[in-house]
């Protein structure tokens, strides 16, 4: 079967809005979350830390009309998709002429639009909500914005899958190429910083009041983030034919469900175990082939423990390859996490460098793993596993290898 090549990447993250800044920030172990002034001023928020995109340069490849008519999630998606196509050296005419599909995921969609019209409704009543905001709130308009901005004619899907979303979108993108429904796929995830998510996670007592410390015994929870990660998928043969740079091969995907609980992971990591095994099987590899794992690693007590348990089930206790969580630096960008972490994995592959888990100080006996603490580490990499686990028991793993 023709392999799926990843030939382009586009990023909008608190760690950077271009690939160079993103890599430099992460490889130096720089933390990008900080206190949010408006939450500090509000007594209803007991925690005030979040990772927001501060740099506004991502907007430069958008038109004024797009800025006025699309919601922020759609704007992130359009901008990152343009950057990813540029990185793949695919011009807009080619993308438009070929069957170019768009597959994106999210957790809450155009949530800042909802927050804007909720404030209007709260103060002035339902009838005062402007029609343009109601129109923006439609989830499918995020993917449609990409298709319309780039004049594409392939299938266009929004497939929300909470925090497993990025991997779900990339997985469907791979399928779409295999089913011959498209020639190029723009795939990824997007979520914007959200008061609703912040409120909800605060009420679930899942937010850390200070630092995100995945796998550390003293970990206190996650830090909410935002962003967008987009990759360009093509058949390997087509990528070679146009002499494209192949950042990596999407060798295997495992998508499963815990079928257990809406917020709690299965105690044995059932869905995660099956997703990892499925991805390895699809990649026609073995556990010995995995050089490094990009962990979901949110920094909550139960999620980290369950993920390690799942990894020990698959790899054997004491045999889990080095793993790390970049959420220790960028927080949790929800539906964008999988795609952003995939981009970090491709950069690690290119640079033969493992990104660190920062703030790791105290080992947790329940997480007996090498989490690349503190600083980046040189390593020879040819095969990487990346996990993303989401609300509702959505579990996903992907494997990338060198092109």
């Amino acid at each position, binding site marked *: 079967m023709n392999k799926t090549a990843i030939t382009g990447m586009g990023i909008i993250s608190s760690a950077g809005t271009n690939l160079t800044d993103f890599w430099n920030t992460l490889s130096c172990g720089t933390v990008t979350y900080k206190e949010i002034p408006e939450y500090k001023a*509000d007594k*209803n*928020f007991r925690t005030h830390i979040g990772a927001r995109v501060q740099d506004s340069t991502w907007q430069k490849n958008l038109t004024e009309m797009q800025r006025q008519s699309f919601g922020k999630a759609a704007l992130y998606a359009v901008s990152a998709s343009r950057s990813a196509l540029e990185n793949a050296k695919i011009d807009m005419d080619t993308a*438009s002429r070929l069957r170019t599909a768009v597959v994106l995921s999210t957790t*809450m*969609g155009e949530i800042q639009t*909802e*927050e804007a019209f*909720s*404030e209007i*409704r*709260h103060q002035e009543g*339902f009838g005062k*909500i402007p029609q343009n905001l*109601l*129109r923006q*709130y*439609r*989830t*499918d*308009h995020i993917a*449609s914005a990409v*298709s*319309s901005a780039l*004049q*594409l*004619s*392939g*299938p*266009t*899907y*929004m*497939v*929300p*899958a909470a925090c497993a979303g990025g991997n*779900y979108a990339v997985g469907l993108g791979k*399928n779409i190429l295999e*089913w011959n*429904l498209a020639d190029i796929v723009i795939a990824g995830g997007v979520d914007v910083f959200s*008061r*609703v998510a*912040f*409120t*909800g996670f605060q*009420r*679930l007592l899942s937010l850390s009041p200070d630092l995100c410390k995945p796998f550390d015994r003293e970990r206190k929870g996650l830090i909410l983030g935002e962003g967008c990660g987009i990759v360009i998928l093509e058949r390997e043969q087509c990528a070679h034919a146009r002499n494209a740079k192949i950042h990596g091969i999407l060798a295997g995907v495992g*998508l499963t*469900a*815990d*079928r257990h*609980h*809406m*917020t709690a992971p299965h105690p044995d990591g059932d*869905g995660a175990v*099956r997703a990892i095994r499925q991805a390895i099987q699809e990649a026609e590899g073995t556990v010995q082939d995995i050089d490094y794992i990009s962990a979901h690693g949110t920094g909550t007590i139960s999620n980290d423990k369950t993920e390690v348990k799942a990894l020990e089930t698959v790899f054997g206790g004491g045999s889990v390859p080095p793993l790390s969580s970049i959420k220790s630096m960028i927080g949790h960008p929800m539906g964008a996490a999988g795609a952003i972490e995939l981009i970090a994995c491709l950069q690690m592959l290119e640079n033969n460098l493992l990104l660190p888990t920062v703030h790791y100080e105290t080992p947790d006996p329940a997480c007996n793993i090498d989490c690349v603490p503190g600083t980046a580490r040189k390593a020879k990499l040819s095969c990487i596993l990346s996990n993303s686990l*989401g*609300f*509702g*028991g*959505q579990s996903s793993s992907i494997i990338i290898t060198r092109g």
Partner: protein
Amino acid sequence: MNKVYITSANTIIGTGWDAEQNCHKILPQQYEPLLQSVPTRNMDRISKIALAAARSTLEARGITVSKDTPNNYGILFGTQFSALDSIHNFDMEALKKGALAVNPGLFPNTVLNAPACQASIHCRFAGPVYTVCSGPLSTLDALGIGYNLIRSGVTSMVLAGGADEAEPLHCAMQNNKKEKGEAAGFLLLESADTIHCGTPLAEIAGYASCALHQKQRTTLSFTLADMITTAVKSGGISARDIACLSLYAWLPANESERLLADLYTELKLNGTREAIKTDWMGSGGIVQANKIIGSKHKALWCLVNADEDKAAVLIIKRL
């Protein structure tokens, strides 16, 4: 490639009437009896109606999946709005009472994949769980992706369909004068490998979906005819074999009729045709499919969904 059969189907169509919203609503008595033994405290309405439809579809096929049975069964939940109303209600509650006063038990309803995951949890489906938001094409795209997952052997069984609500927020977002309706339904799709007993009701024979850019919108009937031809060809059939054509489009009723007539001329068809008039939001596709299963007319059906910026086609052979 596997053949893909429809082995069970159930769609809950709203029987209540809300004059203010100009809408057929699904009544509690239509879904609550189907949720017995399910802990529904804190579960929102969209998840309840989705889960009720999923359970009844499996029940009609006599399938019960036990908790620890390993399986790769998938769920494809198509929905235009999914939990958007629950997100909005959660946020309004936080604005009114303060962020510290909202019920944390309602937060899980605020992720757009919640209804699909509730179906996965309570039906014990352990494979991929996709929520598909494609506007009015949502359930048809969910059926099409489900068809391809089975056809290519990724999964052996899929519950595909979806649901949408018509609360005041959704009606305001739709902003049209059409009569609206709520519907929730699923088809059980299986490959020949999993059909050990029972007779398949129908076979899915083709699918196509694409974005429409400006130029294609001006020649919509030509684009749709092209899509239909592609979809039937993938199933090894000819467009001329289509006996019934059903169109669900965002257009006003008279324009839908005109588009349907143009399509008929374009494809040189002779059979029956129907333009769906009610705005079922994302559930239009499952309502169309439900009609096929309900009919005894053994024929080749072509379902077409069109929105301003995208369109999808599904070919179903009623057996």
